[in-house]
């Protein structure tokens, strides 16, 4: 089973990478882009899909500062 885990900074926590990208866009002529956030994407293959949530909680994301979403492929 293939899965894709999207990890993003929690809403309300300053995401300086997102801010830096957002500020760079107007200089390149892309106006009107807001709320940019930069996260991580982890792709994996797993035999027992019931373990996915636990492994995300324990290692892939730090749930104090990040949210994650699992997508099965």
């Amino acid at each position, binding site marked *: 089973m293939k899965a894709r885990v999207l990890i993003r900074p929690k809403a309300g926590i*300053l995401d300086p990478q997102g801010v830096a990208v957002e500020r760079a866009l107007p200089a390149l002529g892309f106006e009107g882009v807001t709320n940019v956030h930069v996260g991580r994407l982890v792709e994996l293959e797993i035999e027992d899909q019931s373990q996915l949530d636990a492994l995300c909680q324990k*290692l892939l994301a730090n749930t104090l*500062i990040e949210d994650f979403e699992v997508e099965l492929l």
Partner: protein
Amino acid sequence: MKFGVVQFPGSCDERDTVLACEKVGEAQLLWHADPDLHASDAIVIPGGFSYGDYLRVGAIAQFSPVMESVIDFAADGGPVLGICNGFQVLCETGLLPGALLPNTGLRFICRQVQLEVVNAETQFTRAMTAGEQISIPAKHTTGRYYAPGIAEEQIVFRYATGENPNGSQDDIAGVVNEAGNVMGLMPHPEHAVDELTGGSTDGLKIFESMALALA
């Protein structure tokens, strides 16, 4: 007393930490793959880039064999100090509250910082007085401390006014756990133990405090 200084692949401050510990006691390196703490009386997790900072700073190191023993050691009340990446590792293991986020400015910062001692009652600060300022170096990219709801008595060091280099919540530079036997801080006391290279010897006070506490 004997300090055990943990060495992960990617650690880079372990030698300075051993030298700092040796100014107040004995010290030995503890390799990450060996769960034996070799009768250490106190553990120091030094700075660096454990496991290449892969995934998230400190995230992989928390599952190393030595850390399982360090977690048990801390649960039994043993003193554990985490410096910089060591602080990040201790937060990831849950031995300390909170997490470290990328600096607000996104840049690696490397400079001497003034810290104010907020709590001088801990076993890591008893050679200091509350309100005292110490000057030690900070060097990191991921040092913005975030710990919603942390208790005031757990805050041990704050960056002095105007000195916060990374956007840390409430200028927090170092914290202890509720039991008071685990401390983490981002700046580097081990690099400030010799006038010739350290800019000050203020960092020594933390190691002296730990030695005093175990004497």
